[in-house]
């Protein structure tokens, strides 16, 4: 299998193919690390994924051959750097089926993308008494910016609750989304519950009332094919670092007419057309939203991450993760008392599996597992409102990606058995 993605345009994505995890693992140098005397078992990809050699090499190559500031340069390196930077933008547009590269704004990550939106679209369009609909399972990144906006504007935050199974409870949706609704924002896949939400269905409801639809794709974009048109969203945000790419790069997709009507976010070089002491005009899309020198090298290297994912095939990744998650849930269920959060069935669920032990705090779970070389995350996962709804102060979370396999699930389960002996006997 051809996993060392290069810059050639990818052929039509392979369909219905098993991932060859052994070959994939060989592409990720960090997986050879040993931690506390054990081989690393990295089950924390929902926090940040590891990077294949092709991405690391893309960075290296950029700094060794092409590095220069972009857009205003008339020399060869500047043209190469600009070309590579804009090439990634075009690639991203294709990756999520946007109409054109101008609809892709490059940010530091999902968090900045959503803040940009709240500071620009939000400032301009949200007024007193307007309603913003969120869900109970939002990450802080897709809650706090809207909460703050609502505070400033006297707007109202309404919440779509969750069911005991960890799905969105849409039974009251026609009251929650109503004629006062200006914005509906829903996480595409929950980083705690793993739930994949029915964005298209909710978007259709929102559209009936003329509301704008935002989705936080930080967890979904790494895991499944994304088509912003099928989803029916106006804005979509995600982060490179969770999908094999470098840290420091994120994407805000927005429909052209909406981006055009929005004021800029940050101000400075690259985003202006003309500056006088008494008058300033803005550059065209997407530059209007990219003030200053961007994170050029990492944007360039993100292209290699997209190639890697496309070479595997997003459908194949999704299927593989579903299978692995089903196995993980099955095996974790063997453990007495262990409580698994989120849907049990894997049809509408991704590979983040949160759990709690009745006697052992998630932080102790994490520390214990780390002593076995197993990296999981423990805490509130930046979703404190959800934790409160779940009645937990924290959970432990194992999350899986293309380089994880069943033997690692087994290692996790065995370690958890040892753990109960260690703490409770």
């Amino acid at each position, binding site marked *: 299998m051809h996993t060392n993605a290069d810059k050639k345009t990818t052929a039509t994505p392979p369909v219905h193919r098993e991932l060859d995890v052994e070959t994939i693992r060989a592409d990720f140098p960090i997986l050879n690390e040993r931690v*506390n*005397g054990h081989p690393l078992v990295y089950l924390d990809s929902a926090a940040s994924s590891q990077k294949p050699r092709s991405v690391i090499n893309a960075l290296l190559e950029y700094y060794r051959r092409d590095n220069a500031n972009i857009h205003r340069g008339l020399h060869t390196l500047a043209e190469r750097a600009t070309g590579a930077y804009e090439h990634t933008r075009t690639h991203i547009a294709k990756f999520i089926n946007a109409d054109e590269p101008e609809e892709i704004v490059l940010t530091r990550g999902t968090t900045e993308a959503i803040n940009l939106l709240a500071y620009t679209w939000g400032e301009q369009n949200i007024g007193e008494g307007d309603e913003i609909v969120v869900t109970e399972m939002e990450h802080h990144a897709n809650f706090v910016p809207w909460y703050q906006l609502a505070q400033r504007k006297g707007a109202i935050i309404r919440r779509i609750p969750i069911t005991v199974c960890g799905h969105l409870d849409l039974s009251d949706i026609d009251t929650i989304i109503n004629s006062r609704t200006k914005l509906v924002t829903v996480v595409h896949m929950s980083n705690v519950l793993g739930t994949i939400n029915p964005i298209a269905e909710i978007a259709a409801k929102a559209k009936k009332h003329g509301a704008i639809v935002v989705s936080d794709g930080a967890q979904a974009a790494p895991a499944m094919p994304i088509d912003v048109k099928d989803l029916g969203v106006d804005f979509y945000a995600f982060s490179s670092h969770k999908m094999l790419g470098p840290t420091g790069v994120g994407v805000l997709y927005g429909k052209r007419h909406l981006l055009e009507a929005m004021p800029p976010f940050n101000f400075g070089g690259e985003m202006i057309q003309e500056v006088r002491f008494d008058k300033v005009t803005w550059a065209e899309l997407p530059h209007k939203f990219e003030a200053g020198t961007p994170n050029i090298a990492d944007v360039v290297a993100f292209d290699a991450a997209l190639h890697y994912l496309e070479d595997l095939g997003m459908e194949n990744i999704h299927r593989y993760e579903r299978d692995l998650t089903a196995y993980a849930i099955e095996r974790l269920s063997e453990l007495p008392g262990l409580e698994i959060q989120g849907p049990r069935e894997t049809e509408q669920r991704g590979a983040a599996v949160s759990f709690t032990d009745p006697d052992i*705090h998630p*932080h102790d779970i994490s*520390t214990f597992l780390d002593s076995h070389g197993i990296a999981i995350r423990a805490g*509130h996962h930046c979703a404190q409102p959800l934790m409160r709804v779940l009645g937990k102060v924290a959970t432990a979370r194992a999350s899986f990606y293309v380089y994880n396999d069943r033997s690692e699930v087994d290692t996790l389960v065995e370690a958890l058995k040892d753990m109960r002996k260690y703490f409770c006997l």
Partner: protein
Amino acid sequence: MSSSLDDMYRDIILDHYRAPRGSKPLPMADIHSDGHNPSCGDDIEVNIQVEDDILKDIHVNCKGCAISVASGSMLAETVKGKTFVEVQRIAEVVKAMLKGDEVEIPDDLGDLDALKGVRQFPVRIKCALLAWVTLIEGLKHYADDPKGAKPSVSTEKED
């Protein structure tokens, strides 16, 4: 098992964690203080019954990780029956120890030495600190205003 793990979860700590001291509620407490580390979700409640300047009895109710529970349990065991002045001094010694200062733990407070292992795990220090900071806050509050509302603290502001 890695030795640093065992450094942190020493038997003495696991023992306190499994059977926390001072867990019996105090119906008539004079000092009440709450501690809370939002990022961990550690929650602690310290209630003290005072007689003259002695901490006659103490109740510690901690929901949190092994470290915060054990630290709270050790606190209950250590301070019970001691004077305000003694307790104040002990609490400051423990704080200093957890923050990495080289301090001597008096022999009669032997168990507390076990908390030293936590220093290898920087993110967990605030768990060990929580009970002590909550205690100090409660004492301070009581000294200022014996009938005042109970204070509420966190150790996440200090790291």
